[in-house]
């Protein structure tokens, strides 16, 4: 069992945690660790740390540990937790916030999810839309799972549910502008 | 006043304290021998809701450099609802004073319970420091 030496909060990561909590619109002290969020979490079964424990890590000032969890990547943002939290804590938003922060620090514990997001967004950036075929195609290529969902492919094409040529936005400049602006406004992609 | 006077100037601050919370908070500060500036003059009232805004205006007219109104915490009023009136009343009062050119820092309404000796001490100490920083009040002086 790993030992935590308290106080574990150095001044700056305390401020860092407060900043993230503020960004997520929550007050960490409000969480009394009842676990209702984790009890109802549909992805909970696959998480290394339950959402409750992720919040606990932050309460104790263990920011890096929190950012290293797989949980923040596995969260499906279904908001079951936030909806039922007796203290009205926006848990899902916190997960988003931590995920974004982890990515900013390039702490990526779920490579495939990150890869999926990157391809997804680079598609959106390029076409203004998200052509599913290209998405899964590129994803398979880069993740190395070459034949994932290949079985479904034929049916998709046969039924016209997939097109080789992606539909795209005419005004691609507008989209590029949006991406550029958002990047300069901090955050990354 | 001339420079020399300016230097040995000591602010005079009037504090209205409700009998049940803030006045006994001040007493407790005494019991604990807590030190705070001599500039404060406590005037005992049954409830902060007894403090008529007129008194504050009068104090500033007569030459008060600062005024404090202290009462029980909202919800703990000995008379159950008095300090709610106080709270609303002095929000407006503050604006009026600001309007009439008085630095709002000169007038404060604070909640100090009978147990909060330390809070009483820090409140009045802070108030004194602020007022010393702002300097003597000349607004409303001698207005009749």
């Amino acid at each position: 069992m790993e030992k935590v030496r308290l106080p574990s909060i150095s001044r700056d990561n305390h401020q860092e945690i407060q900043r993230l909590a503020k960004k997520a619109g929550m007050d960490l002290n409000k969480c009394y660790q009842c676990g209702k969020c984790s009890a109802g979490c549909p992805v909970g079964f696959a998480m290394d740390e339950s959402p409750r424990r992720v919040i606990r890590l932050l309460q104790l000032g263990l920011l890096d540990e929190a950012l290293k969890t797989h949980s923040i990547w596995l969260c499906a943002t279904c908001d079951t937790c936030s909806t039922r939290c007796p203290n009205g804590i926006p848990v899902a938003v916190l997960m988003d916030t931590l995920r974004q922060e982890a990515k900013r620090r390039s702490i990526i514990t779920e490579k495939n999810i990150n890869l999926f997001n990157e391809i997804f967004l680079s598609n959106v950036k390029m076409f203004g839309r998200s052509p599913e075929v290209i998405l899964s195609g590129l994803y398979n290529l880069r993740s190395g799972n070459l034949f994932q969902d290949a079985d479904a492919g034929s049916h998709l094409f046969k039924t016209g549910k997939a097109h080789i040529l992606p539909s795209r936005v005419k005004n691609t400049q507008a989209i590029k502008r949006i991406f550029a602006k958002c990047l300069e406004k901090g955050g990354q992609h | 006043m001339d420079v020399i006077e300016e230097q040995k100037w000591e602010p005079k601050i009037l504090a209205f304290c409700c009998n049940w919370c803030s006045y006994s908070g001040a007493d407790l500060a005494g019991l604990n021998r807590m030190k705070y500036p001599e500039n404060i003059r406590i005037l005992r009232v049954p409830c902060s809701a007894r403090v008529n805004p007129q008194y504050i205006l009068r104090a500033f007219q007569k030459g008060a450099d600062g005024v404090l109104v202290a009462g029980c915490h909202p919800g703990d009023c000995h008379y159950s609802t008095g300090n709610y009136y106080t709270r609303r009343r002095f929000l407006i009062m503050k604006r009026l004073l600001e309007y009439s050119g008085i630095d709002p820092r000169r007038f404060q309404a604070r909640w100090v319970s009978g147990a909060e000796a330390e809070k009483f001490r820090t409140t009045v100490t802070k108030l004194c420091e602020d007022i010393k920083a702002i300097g003597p009040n000349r607004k409303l002086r001698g207005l009749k």
Partner: protein
Amino acid sequence: MKRIGVFICHCGSNIAATVDCAKVAEAAKAFPGVFFSSDYKYMCSEPGQEFIKDSIKKYDLNAIVVASCTPRMHEHTFRKTLANGGLNPYMFEMTNLREQCSWVHSDIEKATDKAIDLVRMSVAKVAKNEELFSTTIPVHKKALVIGAGIAGMQAALDIADAGHKVVLVDREPTIGGKMPMLDKTFPTMDCSACISTPKMVEVAQHPNIELMAYSEVIEVNGFIGNFDVKIKTKAKYVDHVKCTGCGLCETKCPKKVPNEYDLGMGLRSCIYKPFPQAVPNKPVIDAQNCLKLTSGKCGVCARVCPTGAVRYDDTESFITDTFGAIVMATGYDLYKWEDVYGEYGYGKYPDVVTGLHFERMVNASGPTGGKIKRPSDGTTPKTVVFIKCVGSRDSAKAKSYCSRACCMYTAKHAHQFVDKTPEGNAYVFYMDVRTPGKAYDEFYESTLRDGAVYLRGRVSKIYQDGGKLIVKGEDSLIGKQVEVAADMVVLATAMVPSAGSRELAQAVGFLPDLNGWYQEAHPKLRPVETPTAGVFLAGTCQGPKDIPDSVAQAGAAAVKVCGLLSKSELETNPMTARTNTTVCSGCGICVSVCPYKAIQLQSITERDHHGHRITRNVASVNNGLCQGCGACTVTCRPGAIDLQGFKNDQILEEVDSLWT
């Protein structure tokens, strides 16, 4: 013309060490109206007080200022000194030189200057003091207890045993409240009805207690010692004088409806007693459902009644009476979890029940004869999940407070279930186990030994899956999700103030707290008093409590009542508000701000300056009710209402004196 005497106390060295008392006394001589000023080692000592009395005679003083410790300490002492010295005790002001000067400062020069200022303030004020006289009000030696649950019954019995008359009112057809509904009581596990029903009988038979069941307090006027109360008794449709309570009518009544007493799990007739040991042990007719009263048909009960006690034409009746004191004992209801807990099924799953349902189930005289059965199919559950804090400690959905009794009764329920179901599984989902009571934690531990499994975590969802209820939680101690396939789920729902308690409080003249509980006058030092003098609190109306605490608090309230009723009259504090009717415009704003309903508009007839008779409204203050807070004085635009002892001119003189 005031002849003021000033006395500066050294309090040994307490004051003298930091304040130059002689200098202060000397300075005071120069203050307007001061005829004598001196310092002395201990003013509160016997010789000190003699010194004051002598000076009063010697210098013909008619107002006194003593500068010593805090008035909260010795104001009363010196008032008596004045009285003994032949002055009105209110011709007195006290300067706080110890707590608020010498003890908090160290610079002698500055402290002395401040002391002089403080004394000047007191002198300025006392110059405006007037003689005040306290009046007396009579005390009606009769108490009203509202609500006849265990707390109300206990309070009534204690007051009655002390020899005072008590009227005990309850809106239900029987007294007893919720306690008789319970099966056993923690931690001793003695039968709840067995210890509460004898009390009900004792109440009914007590010569000093007048029982008014099926009745409600609808109007309260007056003040401490003199509350005028209007009480409504609902139509019973049965003459309880004639009725012998034989119960024949109940057996013959053709219509059956769900029994409130069994939370709808059992049936009752429309002419009914809520339960066999009801007190009074005589039935009433439920007018909403009675065939005779709704459709005119039937009339069986009247026909079978051997004493002809049934009265279909009965109507509600009213009485008014005067009481010296009132005890509020209106109790609690259970939080309506069905309204907000969708994740637990909004009450659409029949086998998700509350703790009170469970109590009725395990109760031998309950609808299932003491057998734990699933409401859905009547089978015996093998796996039962207990969920704590449903509605409690949930600021997002329900109540943020802890309901205090749930941890213990849930432990009791879990114990009872495993006790009655040898191979049964009891799972308790909790956030904390709070057992701060004598033998409470030991009880919880015994429940654990019985085999109940405690899981730390709030349940997120319950859903029906075939015959089972799937309960999804987290065991937060291992950080893993847990899922229980349960046959029945018991919710420990929050306590909330009983329906109508807010309206009642307003009628009596005080405000409940944010959650609707009755607010005690002081959380520590006046726990059974309300801000309204003469009104006291017993039991859960003040906040969630278990039975022992309710009974203890009832006893405390009773003592307060007895203390009050032991006096034949009360001396009123003369420092109350007073109206100058000549300038009062009758706007009535003071009426609305008074927390004690002490001010009323009263019409007076007078002659105006042309000699015409005119009638107009003016504010008049009831000295019995006024507590002297002065909130009214500030709202008075013409400045007609003022507070004796803290009059506007007194305070303004104090303010002015600082800068003269």
